[in-house]
């Protein structure tokens, strides 16, 4: 269990917030794909009771900063959005297995749907040093894309976007973008986002015999492997998203 000082917590669009926290000294190994489980209740309160899992959006060991990007969707994330600079935040983590990052000179595709793009950013930064990356981003509208477009472009990756309402990039979903790419070209693919998207991408990957990894989300109780709240179906049987995951080889996940 850790407690960190919040360096900043800024609203970057109507419902998106970026929080920068001090990385505690005893935490050295923060990998892309890890997540933190954040406490959202105040002192002496048992409500809300559960922690909220949020992915590592970025990590800067030099400045000792961990970045979290979150969308305000319910009361937990609303509470997070009220935290101010110098408030303390309590969390468990970093948790989970993380993405595979030991590639070199490969052509890699990252595909993020909605908030699924959040954990891909740190991954993109790490991989882009020695690989060629293409990033496909999908969202409902421009508002949900501007921030991501900007940061991913700064990594040097090639970035394309799709929006359902057509207000930014291709009008349609991110799977359309994928179909427009020459998918055989890629050595590896990473994705995070809504299940219907992952499902379609898995179908495509199976067709083209493409390897890669998915980062999954499930409701969590403990976030540390105790309670079996968060299991997903895989070819190896049920696996805990918080412990064996959240990242799974794309070919192992079984979608219903």
């Amino acid at each position, binding site marked *: 269990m850790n407690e960190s000082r919040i360096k900043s917590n800024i609203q970057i669009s109507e419902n998106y917030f970026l929080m920068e926290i001090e990385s505690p000294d005893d935490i050295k190994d923060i990998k892309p794909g890890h997540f933190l489980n954040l406490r959202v209740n105040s002192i002496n309160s048992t409500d809300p*009771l559960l922690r909220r899992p949020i992915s590592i959006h970025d990590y800067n060991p030099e400045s000792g900063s961990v970045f979290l990007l979150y969308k305000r969707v319910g009361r937990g994330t609303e509470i997070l959005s009220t935290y101010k600079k110098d408030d303390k935040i309590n969390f468990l983590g970093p948790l989970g297995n993380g993405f595979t990052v030991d590639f070199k000179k490969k052509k890699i595709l990252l595909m993020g749907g909605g908030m699924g793009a959040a954990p891909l950013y740190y991954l993109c930064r790490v991989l882009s040093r020695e690989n060629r990356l293409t990033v496909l981003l999908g969202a409902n509208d421009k508002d949900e894309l501007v921030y991501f477009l900007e940061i991913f472009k700064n990594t040097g990756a090639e970035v394309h976007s799709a929006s359902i309402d057509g207000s930014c990039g291709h009008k349609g979903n991110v799977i359309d973008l994928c179909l427009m790419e020459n998918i055989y070209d890629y050595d590896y693919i990473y994705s995070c986002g809504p299940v219907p998207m992952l499902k379609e991408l898995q179908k495509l990957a199976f067709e083209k015999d493409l390897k890669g990894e998915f980062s999954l989300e499930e*409701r969590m*109780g*403990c976030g540390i492997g*105790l*309670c079996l709240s*968060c299991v997903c179906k895989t070819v190896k049987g049920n696996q805990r998203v918080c412990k064996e995951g959240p990242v799974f080889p794309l070919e192992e996940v079984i979608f219903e």
Partner: protein
Amino acid sequence: MLEIDLSTKLASLELKNPVITASGTCGFGEELNEYIDIEKLGALTVKGITVKAWSGNKQPRIAETPSGILNSIGLENPGITGFIDEKLPVLANYRLPVFVNISGHSIDDFVFLAEKLAPYPEISGIEVNVSCPNIEGGGMAFGTDSSLVYQVTREVRKVYPGIVILKLSPNVTDIVEMAQAAEEGGADVISLINTLLGMKIDIKRRKPELGNIFGGLSGPAIKPVAVRMVYQVASKVKIPIIGMGGIMSGSDAIEFLMAGASAVAVGTAAMVNPVLLLKIIDEIRDFMKDNKITKLSEIIGQALL
């Protein structure tokens, strides 16, 4: 310096302190041991085991409610054989008493499970779960009929030499009746309470939030009901009680002890923060220090009239 004795007795078994993990919220100890030294606990109760391996219920399996959680894990577990082959050898390495929680659909199931576990001295006792709200066609039904509680207890008692704990369902009109049936059947200890049957509706999707519709309510929300049941039962049965339901702090644990529990189990709190398990032990000790109480037994049942 005051010498504080936190030890407590559950039938023939002495625990070095009264804090036990609640079944299903601490896996089989291994993951928990990454966060705390589990050997500091009074005992460990593992996830519910069934005759066959079980993959549990549909997602979502958990929902948050005011000061509580609803779960419908549905007893996902490796089955008795998987447990004995894969989990028990690991558990045997820890120097602390282990209770194995068992669940069944019939009396035969419970007897079968108890027989399977009987040969292992590394297990201190079995917790017979006649109260799981999350399995179909059975589970909780056992715990809501006192004659079934009596029968299950008696049959399990016959085949299991170690400590037999009956874990009762709070979803009943008269908890005392169930506890008395367990005592008459030969139980050594009673565990109170399992989860309250509840549900939550996702108003956006206009559907129950849990894949399984209903789930079990745990956490601080249910503490008043749990303390009440422990209090009612404590004055009517002679065997010791493990009290649980919403314990988050030493004060909460002491409420249960004063209501008549000889030990307490902690579930939801460990999920929220595993460190609380040890903090609760420390807080009980601090309370005793502050109040110049040297023995835990001086607290137990203090609030009973």
